[in-house]
């Protein structure tokens, strides 16, 4: 997990400019900032990998692939020949 401290530089409608200690500029959606923030505030950001979600996403994606394949990827079954 990575944790960094960022200064809020500018709050502009939907986007905020955050700055790291070594002046890395990050454009960040304000919607992802906590309430009560203003220019000059300091925020902590934690970033963590979400393996669980990755597995879940992969499962969903595989399902969709299967459905596409099953719907369009197989020849239509022959109409059954009726023998008298």
């Amino acid at each position, binding site marked *: 997990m990575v944790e960094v401290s960022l200064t809020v530089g500018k*709050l502009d409608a*939907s986007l905020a400019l955050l700055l790291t200690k070594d002046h890395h500029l990050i454009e960040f959606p304000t919607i992802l900032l906590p309430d009560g923030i203003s220019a000059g505030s300091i925020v902590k950001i934690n970033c963590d990998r979400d393996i669980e979600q990755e597995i879940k996403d992969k499962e969903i994606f595989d399902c969709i692939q299967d459905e*596409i394949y099953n719907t369009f990827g197989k020849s239509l079954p022959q109409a059954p020949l009726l023998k008298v």
Partner: protein
Amino acid sequence: MSFVTQGSIPEVLETNANDSLTERTQCLSDIQDLGPPDMVHLIKHNPSTKTEIGTYLYYTGSDVSNSACVAALLHSIADIIGETPQVWFGKHKPWKVQEATYCAYNAFSKLDTRVNVHFPGGVSSSMLDAEGNPVIEKDRYWLETAVSSVVRALISADDDEADFSSIVEIRKINPFPNEETITIFLKGCEDLFFEGPKLGCAPTIQLPTLASNYLVDAFMIAVSITGKYQEGLEILTRLAHKEPSVSYLIAKLHFMSSHEVDGIAALYETSRERPLDSNLLMTQAEFCYEKGRFDLALPVAIRAVNSSPSAFLPWALLVKVYIATGNYEQALLTLNSCPIVTHKDKYHLRRVTIPPTSNLHLPLPVDVTLPEVSSLNSQDVANEHKEVDQTLLNLPAGNLKSTFAIAYGLLTEIVRKTGWEALLKFRAKVFVMEEEYRKEKSESSTTLATNGNVEAANGGSETPKEDYRKKRLCERWLDNLFMLLYEDLRVYTMYRAELVHFTAQQMEFKKSTLEWELLGLVSSRLCHQKEAAEAYNLALSGRFSVRSSKKLLGYYQGEKKRIKRIESGQKKKDEGSMTSEEIAKYKQTLQKKILDLVVKLSIWNHRWYSEFSPMLLDALASMIDDAGVLKVESEIRANYATETNGVFELISDSLEFLKTHHFYRPDE
């Protein structure tokens, strides 16, 4: 070569002989793309007056795979010009070609390949680098030259965006007159595959990659117009082993040859190994979209975006899907995120040097004529242009190109579904409007004075309000598209209202061909295809117009597909239903209309020295597919051809091409 006469060879008279070759050499170092079209340079001698002049013309589609092929072409041109005295700026001149040079740019190695023929005898060739210095010839360079030339021919064919500055002193011939030429080209694409990115890519793509570049694009066009699907698939399968990113092209070829099941299976298989291949995901999503399965298209399109967030096309596709599902807010937000490509232009054929108009020799071919098309008076057209309604002429949306044009198309698709008022509401809901922005700004600037105290700032009143924060800033370009949309809508609405009014009053609604055409274009832009077709038809009722004809041909081809979907019971939700009687009648009308357009456009192309149009070949092939070659031939004879006007012979040439490439069996 049956249709080459003195009347179908344009030339430019050089102010000083050989100027054009010198200028071409000088500009080599500046070439950044596929390069200029091929060029033929002639030194012509008049034995009776002992004068000598230099002329040149451009070329696309010739076979330049070795110097013998090129020499043969130069010989045939020299023969035609020397056959009988040439009508030269109003007088008959007994020109004999003394020397001819063919130049073809090799865009892979950035060399200009030149073949020089002295008449009667003597052939030499050379290859010049960017500085104009000769390099040692290699087989590889010849291959590169041949492939470059064909790629230029294919990429520039049927160029819709070509404007008034485009080249007229050019002959465009079919690069695949026989089986051999197509085989060589496809093989050449395979051999040069890993050099493909050097040729650049379409303007909708940021950077050329192995999987998308002009070489690959030309390969796909070549396969499609010659029907060489089997060969194409074999090549791509071999390439996919070395470079899996081309796998999506395999699926595309399956779809193009109507093997949907195989295409889907190919995508399914590759998606296991390449779950983040956005080309593959786009192909899949596009397919589901076409089938009306937006529920499947959506997650796949999202994944395409997530896999290639800085590419434009996945975003545009996602917008399209959101529109189809009626999620207009998300469509607008997503549209706003599209990474517009601003730094690139489409490849067009460009002159090396701009000749003075008075030096242009642009003969009228007399072997194939249809008065309505061949004798179109360019002065009349120019006068019409001068008197045209300026509001129509200057609609800025008409000049949008590439990604801007696509984004605009998506916006018009939304407005078609929601109407203008609702679109404005959605817009205000998701974007920060200027008024609101100013208000927020002034509020935050008053709080700024006191927010030095960290303790006080804890309150929370400084953060923008929740709903404001959820909004985004509308990109400047998108804002601009809204303005253009407003202008288009204003003109379109007024036009439709007038039309209704005049029709109701049974008055004639008089406009010039150009004006109808421009109204057609506005209607097209606003996704009112039927209304656009109406306007194009009105335009053509005045006189022939190449743009209206092309647009209309595209529309009718689309209609044919729609009818087929209805017939097969696969029609989309918003496509009306028809009785089988109506269908049959409509199909007949379409067939007639399409034939009319194909014949006239073929004659127009021939008048402008062009014998190659994938669009017309495609239309002809599909007509034959529907009605058989005999039916098509007999209709041409009945309605267009006379003993002497050459129309039947001209179309037969295209039919011959289709026969060569097995689009129909000769005895059919």
